[in-house]
């Protein structure tokens, strides 16, 4: 990949950002919401991909970071009167600390055990949020004071998405990414080659936790009401994993494509088939997992439509 190609990709990303930036006035409020959530899922899928796609450690509890960010924003805005934007930074910081504290012991586990441990951690965080009601209002949830329009959250999410794509791209085309891939392919060999696997895993894990936390904070300010079951919802982790898998785990484009497609399909089925949409969603998950475990990008590579590189 030459300098020219990188510059061109960066410009394309910038163009995308601008295009989406000019969109809001043309859209109804409902569609603006839809766009915001699509972008949010792009962020989530890309983040999950950093630890589970690049590094190969399947996290089944990533929603914990999302929930932490949501609660950081909600608590600071509602109970302490903070302005909204700085709370996102706090959420990111708390998530980073949590990621290091949790990651250090848990990243020692292999494959399915890591996945289950993360699931337990996410559920545990949910229970803590429910029980510690001095801080989080527990099962009552938190109602945030209302903003006049939904535009600021749209732009915040757009900015977050652009940053996340840029970071993922950077990881994918750097030595850091190569080393993460090495850890995924054969950790013992990587260690033997002199890569400090603990440090790299922890770095990847922390990065992958920070973006969902900011996304969670933005979402809290948009939806204006959160409670433990909704922000620590296991289906959000499933969505992240499924989107990455659908698009192509371990690539840069994959999670983006997967997120856009899956979220759109989900929304269309929800609108048109309110009773059966979850059955359709379940079936979709089964079919994708059964027939396309390497995702659309993997499919394209197999057909020779795409060049197999480390990342795309």
């Amino acid at each position, binding site marked *: 990949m030459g300098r020219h190609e990188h510059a061109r990709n960066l410009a394309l990303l910038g163009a995308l950002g601008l295009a989406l930036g000019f969109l809001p006035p043309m859209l109804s409020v409902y569609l603006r919401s839809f766009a915001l959530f699509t972008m949010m899922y792009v962020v989530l899928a890309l983040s999950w991909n950093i630890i*589970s796609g690049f590094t190969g450690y*399947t996290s*089944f509890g990533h929603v914990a970071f999302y929930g932490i960010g949501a609660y950081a924003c909600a608590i600071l805005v509602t109970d302490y009167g903070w302005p909204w934007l700085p709370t996102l930074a706090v959420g990111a910081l708390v998530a980073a600390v949590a990621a290091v504290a949790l990651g250090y*012991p*848990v990243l*020692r*586990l*292999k*494959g*399915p*055990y890591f*996945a*289950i*441990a993360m*699931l*337990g*951690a996410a*559920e*545990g965080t949910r*229970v*803590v949020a*429910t*029980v510690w009601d001095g801080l989080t209002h527990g099962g009552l949830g938190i109602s945030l004071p209302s903003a006049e329009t939904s535009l600021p959250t749209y732009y915040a999410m757009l900015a977050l998405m652009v940053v996340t794509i840029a970071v993922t791209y950077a990881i994918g085309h750097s030595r850091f990414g190569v080393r993460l891939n090495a850890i995924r392919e054969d950790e013992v060999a990587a260690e033997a080659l002199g890569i400090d696997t603990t440090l790299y895993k922890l770095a990847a894990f922390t990065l992958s936790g920070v973006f969902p936390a900011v996304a969670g904070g933005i979402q809290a300010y948009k939806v204006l009401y959160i409670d433990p079951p909704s922000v620590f919802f296991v289906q959000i982790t*499933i969505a992240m*994993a*499924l989107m990455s*898998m659908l698009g192509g*785990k371990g690539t840069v484009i994959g999670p983006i494509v997967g997120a856009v497609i899956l979220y759109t399909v989900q929304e269309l089925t929800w609108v048109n088939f309110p*009773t*059966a949409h*979850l*059955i359709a*969603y*379940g*079936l*979709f*998950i*089964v*079919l*994708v*997992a*059964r027939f396309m*475990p390497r995702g659309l990008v993997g499919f394209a590579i197999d057909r020779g439509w795409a060049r197999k590189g480390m990342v795309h």
Partner: protein
Amino acid sequence: MERSEVRRLYLLAAFLVCAYALPFVVGAWAGTVRFDERWLANLATVVIAGVMQGGVYAMFAVGLTLIFGVMRIINAAHGEMVMLGAYLTWVCFFYLGVDPLLSIVLTLPVAFLFGLAMQKLLLDAVVGQPELTGLLITFGLGLVMIYTVELVFTTDFRTIPYAPGTVQLTSTIAVGQNRVISFVMALVITAAVYVFLQQSRLGKAVRATAVNAEVAMVCGINVRRVYLLTTGLAVALAAAGGALVSIQFGFNPETGVVYTLQAFAIIILGGRGNYVGALIGGLMLAVLENLVSLMVPNGTAMVELASYGLMIFVLLIRPAGLMGLRED
């Protein structure tokens, strides 16, 4: 065993002792613990109820550990199998007037067949793939099951009024009739399956495949058939668990989700693929949950924390759990 292994086991044992002591300590500090006759009777009731409950928990955990042990697949829809069993029992009871315990005779074969179908259609393609594929595919299946049942039966809670009376063990300790019956049935069923796994040729084939599938194949075992049998058996056990649960508690399409997570915690505690481990794990978890609920202030809300906490700490100390083999 090498020394570090022995050390880990001791550490695990020590941790478990602390975990059990913790509710007592917290309770003593908070004043909910008293050592008089009445309170000890309360404690005994709660422990007995936990043991009874644990027997039933163990029954569905055993199925999960079999699938995990033999195929390395995490069945995220296991709770839904339990739920299926509960609804099948309810249908037999409500529409056919069959006694819930007798209907197990009908429910088990149906569940077994469902397991076979599940294996053939879905899981066969997933064996050997990374754990995410198995998790996702079973999760999707679980969603389909929950919402299809909801479409047919609505989300109303169903109950089966069965043996609502009480069994008075002493003047102050009592236990529900239906709990005792469930516990006895659970013991009978799990013992029968245990004997099958230990003594019969097919059972030994299952155990061999769990240890090492490649070597089993070389020895002439039809591994595909073993997989089919395992899943069928696991689903049947889960459904039986559901039948036993249906006579004790109300259930609706979503009650399975909680059971899945508890089953995960149990099999981690007991050890991957280890049958007896799952039984022990089930008993231990149920009793611990009840102790936490009884003695810790606001304990009932924290019961879930007990199962997740237990699970995470076991994973960190010794991922193979109490009785599992050391990981390859």
